[in-house]
Structure formats: structure tokens, C-alpha cells
């Protein structure tokens, strides 16, 4: 990194400044983030990040912090929560029933054929990336993989060292559902299935 780059991005030149930069991170981070991580990414003091976080939390809760504003701020539908692991944006807890109705809508108790096939690929080829599952199944599997993770049947294991892609594997919940003690007990599928070698080839 060049010395110039160490100054970090010119946040004041960006719309919304540091506040917006912190929001941007919080909005898309897929796990809780600490104020230290945010400070490091933005190259600003931890104390400023802490101040921004406190202010955002209050703002989302409808507590006005803008001195020039007399009106009442309505709370937003999301809130900023801090746990030991860090900060994360959640749906506001009062809306849990609404959110649940939305999430449960269209969900069925049984897995679709597409989900079963994807699960089979993960079970027999783990650790495996989404790209590779897609290559084997010939279709985009992002949605199905999400469903299987939500269902607790598969989980993110690690990242591939080379490509950085997230690798998936099955869970103990999956073993429970299958009624087996370990993956070794999965029935053999013919090891010399034509095409398995070719499939390796499709990898991206």
C-alpha cells in the first residue's frame, strides 16, 4: 500500500461522510462487526466510529440527534444491536410477527427436488463451493443453497484458499435427519460414475 493510500478513503468527499460509510458496512456485513474493524477499514479513530455507532443507534430508534430538527423522528424498521461479537443491523424486534409471516410465506415443510439434489451434491462432494454445485447441477443454485443453510442442513465451512469461495458441508442436523452417525455411513454411489471426472473439469 502506498503512503497515500494509508490515509484511507476520502470519506468527507463521499455522500453522507463517515456516518454513511459506517452504515454501508453495517448494512451488508454478513456477520457482526466490531468498531475496531470498522475503524481499520475506514482509517478513522475508533472513538469516532464509536460516536457514529451510538448516534446511528439512537437515530434508528427515533431519538433525534439533529439539533436543527424539532419534529419527532419515527423509529425505523431496523435497529442497531451490539453484542460481544460486534454490531449488527436487525429488523426491529416489534416487527417479528410481520417478518415471520414474510419469511414463512411460501415455505413448505418438505424439501423441493432441487433442494434435495443440491443437498446430495454437498453431501457427497463436501467441502464444495456454490460455483461447483452450479456446474454439476447446470443451474444457478444460490437460492437453494440459502434455503438449505436456513434449514440447518448445510453450513459454511471455510473459504477455499485459492479462489476465496465459501465452501459448504453438511451439518450434524443432516446426519440426524438421515439417521446415520457419520458421513461414512452414507451409501456408496458408484465411484466410477461416468462423468464425475468430467465434472471436476467444469470447475470455475
Amino acid at each position: 500500500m502506498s503512503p497515500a493510500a494509508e490515509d484511507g478513503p476520502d470519506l468527507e468527499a463521499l455522500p453522507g461522510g463517515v456516518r454513511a460509510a459506517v452504515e454501508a458496512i453495517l448494512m451488508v456485513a454478513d456477520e457482526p462487526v466490531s468498531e475496531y474493524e470498522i475503524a481499520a477499514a475506514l482509517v478513522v479513530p475508533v472513538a469516532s466510529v464509536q460516536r457514529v455507532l451510538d448516534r446511528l443507534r439512537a437515530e434508528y430508534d427515533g431519538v433525534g440527534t439533529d439539533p436543527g430538527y424539532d419534529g419527532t423522528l419515527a423509529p425505523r424498521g431496523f435497529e442497531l444491536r451490539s453484542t460481544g461479537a460486534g454490531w449488527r443491523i436487525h429488523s426491529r424486534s416489534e416487527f417479528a410477527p410481520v417478518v415471520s409471516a414474510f419469511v414463512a410465506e411460501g415455505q413448505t415443510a418438505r424439501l423441493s427436488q432441487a433442494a434435495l439434489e443440491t443437498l446430495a451434491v454437498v453431501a457427497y462432494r463436501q467441502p464444495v463451493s456454490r460455483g461447483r454445485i452450479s456446474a454439476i447441477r447446470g443451474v444457478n443454485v444460490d437460492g437453494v443453497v440459502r434455503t438449505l443453510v436456513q434449514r440447518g442442513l448445510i453450513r459454511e465451512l471455510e473459504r477455499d484458499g485459492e479462489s476465496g469461495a465459501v465452501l459448504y458441508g453438511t451439518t450434524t442436523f443432516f446426519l440426524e435427519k438421515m439417521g446415520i452417525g457419520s458421513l461414512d455411513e452414507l451409501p456408496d454411489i458408484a465411484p466410477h460414475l461416468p462423468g464425475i471426472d468430467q465434472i471436476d473439469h467444469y470447475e470455475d
Partner: protein
Amino acid sequence: MHPEEPPGPPGTGGFAVQLEDFAGPFEVLLSLIAKHELDITRIALATVTDEFLQYVRALHEIGSTRALDEASEFLVVAATLLDLKAARLLPRGEVEDEEDVALLEARDLLFARLLQYKAFKEVAVLLDERMRAESTRLPRSVPLDPEVAAVLPELDWRTTPQQFAEIARSVFTPRPGAPAEVGVDHLHGTAVTVRDEAEILAGLLEDGAPRSFRVLVADAGSTLAVVVRFLALLEMYRDAVLELAQEQPLGELTVRWTGAGTGWTADRLSEDAGDAGDAADAADPADGGPAPHAHPSPDAARLVSGASA
């Protein structure tokens, strides 16, 4: 795409194509046209054509596995160039017989194809820019809170390990039906080879008497054969076994055999006319994945028309 390969084949006179982004024969053709600042709608493509053939040949000589070795691609371009060459001989507006009309249409078709390809290439750049700009907005996609996830209907699992293995087996078995469609829309007509046509020409001319091109193609039977026979003529001229004479632009083309005693045979042509068949197992360079070959592996110099569709 093929970073291990040299940036360009040797001996092509500094001709540079965007090989990293190589996307097919039309691409090469277009970059040649651009290099010579030719208007694509004009017929003056002779230089381009010759350089292109050289380029193909050079690629072949260095044993490149690049796109042009792909049989189907070579066929389409070869046919395109043949027709461009043939079309150049035709006077504008002079449409006297059926063959002329066919060739004129072939020429228009080829220009239309190149123009069309160029247009799609340009909008592909726009799509790329748009998608790249869009990818700077990262979508929110976070795991559900456990309390929300808890409302999902309880999983109703009825699959036995044996059934599960059966599903796995079916997924890992290559689907046979999938690539059933063979892209031959652009390939049309019977195979006509330069070598065979050259042999016929040699036979017709061996007595040493001059003959007009019109006479030489009188028995050709199809536009395709006329075009291929014309290319054979060019190849033989290159080998210096023919003399060509044309009294005036667009006039009668007279051909005379001068190859007596040179030991020339038509077999020589197949050696350097761009052998496409031996690389039929090369991976599809377009996306890095293996492509099942939709086209039959052709003989070395077999040319199938892309213009008679």
C-alpha cells in the same frame, strides 16, 4: 484467457489482435478491418482476407490450440472469406444470371453478418459497463435471526439414505439429452474441398490451353463449388502453377496452366490450407470449459459454406 500462449503468432507482419479477449473469427476479421481502416461495407477486403489466411496458417504452424483450431469456427470464417473474395469479382448492378444473384446475396449476407456481429459486440461492452457499475452496490444478504428462522415450518424429512444416494447418483450422471441440439444453422450444403476442386482444375487445364473461369466452373453444379473452385485457383496461383489474365477490370478471367514439370499435385494444398481437423479435441477457448463438438470433425481443407443459407 490463454496467458501461457504468446501474444501473437510469429510471421504475421506485426498484426496484433486482442488475443486475451479473443472471442472468435469475426473478432479477428473485424480487428483486421479496423487496422486497415476499411469501411466494413466496402468490398476492398482483399488485404484483410490474405492476412487472415496467413494468421490462421501461422496459428496452425505453432501448434496453437487457440480458437481457430476449433473446426466449426474455422469453417465459418473460411466460408465467409471465400464468399467475400468471390463477391469482389462481381460488378455492382450487373446481375445477368442466377449465379451472380446468388453471389450478390451471399455478399450482402456476409456483410450483414459482420455488421450484426459488430453491433452485438458493441452492446456487449455496454452490458459489461452496466453490470460492473451495478456490482459496486452490494446487496444485503444476511443470515436470519434464530427467532425468525424458528417460524419456518418444521422440516418433514422422508428420504432414506438409499433414496438419497439414488438422487446423488442421478445428479452425477451426465444428462444425455441436454446438448442434443447441434448448431448447424450456419453450416449448409455438402462438403466441397479445395483440394478436390484444385484437382479438377488441374485436369481441365493440363493440356496447356488457356480457358476462361466461366468455362472452368461450367460444371461446378452449385454456388458453393464455384466459390471453392475460385479459392483453389488462388491457391494454385500462389503455388505458381497458373497464369491469370484479365484484360479489363471485371472482364473475363483467363487461366493457363504453367505447372507442367513442376511435380505439383493437389495434395500439396491440403498441407498448408489450414488443417482444422487435428485439433478437434481442443477445449473451447470461449469459456475455458470443454465443449462437446457440435460439428463433425472435418477433413483438413474441407470447406462448408456459411453463405448459402
